[in-house]
């Protein structure tokens, strides 16, 4: 998996937040649209695109998008 692809996929889970607002160093939990529902979408796309299971707890443990990418990549 590639970081840039991941960021693009990650950004697609948001409806109102523009993709340009989501970069590798974005603290995604601080985004206004971030919610447990968006987290659920992230769980779904990680499972379907990468066939890896990430938990809500793991997502919450990450600050930036890149941190989340690294965590998933290491699985």
């Amino acid at each position, binding site marked *: 998996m590639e970081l840039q692809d991941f960021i693009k996929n990650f950004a697609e889970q948001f409806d109102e937040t523009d993709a340009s607002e989501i970069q590798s160093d974005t603290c995604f939990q601080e985004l206004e649209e971030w919610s*447990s*529902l968006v987290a*659920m979408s992230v769980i*779904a796309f990680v*499972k*379907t695109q990468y066939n890896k299971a990430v*938990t*809500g*707890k793991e997502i919450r443990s990450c600050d930036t998008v890149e941190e989340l990418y690294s965590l998933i990549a290491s699985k």
Partner: protein
Amino acid sequence: MKAYIKGISYYLPERVVTNDDLVREFPEWSVEKVAAKVGVYSRHLAAKEETAGDMAEKAARSLFQEYNIDPKEIDFLLLCTQSPDYFLPSTSCVLQHRLGISSTSGAFDYNLGCSGCIYGLAVAKGLIMGNIAKNVLILTSETYNKYLHPTDKSNRSIFGDGAAACLVSTEGLAEIGEFVLGTDGSGAEDLIVKTGGSRHKEQTGVSEIDEEGHARYDDYLYMNGGAIFNFTLEVVPTLIQQILEKNQVRKDEIDYYVFHQANKFMLNTIRKVCAISKDKFYINMEETGNTVSSTVMIGLKDALEKELITSANQVMITGFGVGLSYGGCILRIE
């Protein structure tokens, strides 16, 4: 010998709670966004004194009336519920008497949730093929809303109460094909009401914030949404494949899919992962919510009435959730 679904009816309690009602309690909540995602706009709730047994009775009476069934013809009663009227006796025994079903009938409750319809059909088919019974009444009934904490807006937006009744017999409208079933008890705590049973009989009053930032109350229903989602995405695609193989049918021969109506987002994710076209895939929980063990029966009934399912169709049904438990089979419409 073959086993068939002969009729399906359902009952939804009188009281309706709309999303507008919920938003009055949670004004900070972006209800449209949630509704668009989970696919529920209103749901029915059992009355304070109305139990799962009461609702199952109403679903059964509706079935008897609609299909002109004499309760005396029934020789086995199965009730699926996780909110029984008593610890003992089995609510099915109470219902045998209340419904006027013969005292020479067998009856028992079984405790399952979202997979309950499938397991009921599997057991009913076994009873018929084993020459143990000829007319098996399956009732599914759930009042999950009574297990929900008043501040648990996520689950209150998803779950609705309801009951379904289905007669399985030696002839009927849909032949019941081969089953695939599965269980993963390692996920037991991902969807649980912890207290009130024998393990933790007394309420604890304990609550904590879970890994997704939701409150987890020992004394109320708790669902780890992410874990359930991962479980579903793990097992359902394989389940579909196994059902096809066991029934010796190709995917393109399946005319319609009625899966447990967990929530719209989860169903759409499964649909996309499994490359099933929208027009073959039932999603309708706008006015009922997730009624747990009754969603598949309600969906089948609705799809038959709307002629989304017609004569000679092959229909795949699946259920998955609390347990964790899952299963599915194929129905061949006569």
